[in-house]
């Protein structure tokens, strides 16, 4: 995992000559520590402090009650913390697993409510396939082909005590 994240940080620098314009935004929950780790590596390599925020997409989800799934209690909402202006920035969204693409759709809507970024790109640690929307990641840690019945769980030291990726049958 550490090597994949380091490689992504280098790719970011390679593709973007103006590192001052780059900002990282992690999608809660596990995208946030991933974004912080990438920001730290970027800072070490480029000597530039890259701003890093956290985005909670719950309020933008398309599967809240009222649709077919009205019998579930609402998911817990956490705070969105983006304490820099996204206007004119190249915003790199960070998430742990890319699956249907619906989380990213919600994250795009949420982010655009904060301003007008110059561009938005997507970083994911794991791409497991099975997209339901036309969304593609710009930086991928690892592609893991899965079947739709499997579950992919990312554990991170900051939240779960250890770094590991688990594919459950």
């Amino acid at each position, binding site marked *: 995992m550490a090597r994949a994240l380091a490689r992504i940080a280098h790719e970011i620098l390679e593709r973007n000559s103006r590192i001052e314009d780059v900002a990282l935004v992690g999608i809660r929950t596990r995208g946030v520590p991933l974004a912080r780790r990438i920001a730290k590596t970027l800072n070490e390599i480029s000597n530039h402090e890259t701003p890093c925020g956290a985005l909670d997409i719950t*309020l933008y989800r398309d599967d*809240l*009650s*009222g649709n077919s799934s009205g019998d*579930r*209690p*609402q998911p817990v909402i956490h*705070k*969105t*913390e983006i304490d820099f202006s996204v206007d004119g920035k190249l915003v790199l969204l960070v998430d742990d697993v890319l699956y249907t693409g619906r989380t990213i759709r919600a994250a795009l809507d949420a982010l655009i409510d904060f301003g007008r970024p110059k561009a938005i790109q997507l970083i994911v640690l794991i791409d497991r396939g099975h997209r339901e929307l036309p969304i593609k990641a710009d930086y991928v840690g690892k592609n893991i082909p899965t079947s739709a019945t499997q579950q992919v769980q990312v554990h991170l030291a900051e939240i779960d005590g250890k770094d590991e990726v688990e594919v459950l049958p």
Partner: protein
Amino acid sequence: MKKDLLGIADLTADDIYRVLETAEAMREVGQRTIKKVPTLRGKTVVNLFYEPSTRTRTSFEIAEKRLSADTLNVAVAASSVLKGETLVDTAMNIEAMAPDMIVLRHASSGACHLLSRICKSRIINAGDGMHEHPTQALLDAFTIREHKKTIEGLKIAIVGDLLHSRVLRSNALLLTKLGANLWVCGPPTLVPPGIECLGVKVTTSVKEAVQDADVIMMLRIQQERMQGAFFPSLREYFDVFGMTKERVALAKPDVIIMHPGPMNRGVEIASDVADGPYSVILEQVANGVAVRMAVLYLLAGGVEDEAAA
């Protein structure tokens, strides 16, 4: 959460913490340039207010709009209620137009429970008679937590017209559930009999109530509900029970002063206290929007235990 929010009596401490934590996230939405999220898109919320209200109705409406719900206000003064329609008939007619939620304020205690039994829409109690005003108690708790971090173990004094106050009942239930040391104080004629069974300490001495208090909450003298003579004059009431600088000085140095509004300046609270450094009265109003967004959001979802609800 159950289907409806009828009162604090139905909530567990966990439910209360869930609302307060959700409200934290909702407050952030109100601080953005674009103060709107699409969460309740396509939901219809009817605000049905049978009693005058500025704060609560505006607050609910702003909360609903920030969550993208479609809202409409039924102004009872200009409605068929004047032609003699009953609450149940009005509600059934509104219900026929399939709203998702009804926010109800009514002068009769238990009006929300009545609608809850006959309506499929989710009912939110925005104050029913002298019974409960749950969203007020939730926003009060949110404001206290913001200043004191926790509610457990705080000395909280509620002073004023205890008899007619739904804010008192909701707050007493909520604050004792979260472990506060709650004192209530008012003239003997305005202390409802049996109030001790809510787990509060009762006194008629303001001094005893506010001594070393962390929070002082003032209640309005509700003249519109008073048919008898509960005290000789408003001036005498202020002399004995009004919150003055001198009385505030008995409390802890970091005390906060709260009031659910509307205030009667010079009756239950002196102007220099209401506008003074300890007052968090306008913060309460600001927090009301976030707390009501949290309630709307949590109720819009499913029911944890359909069978129980």
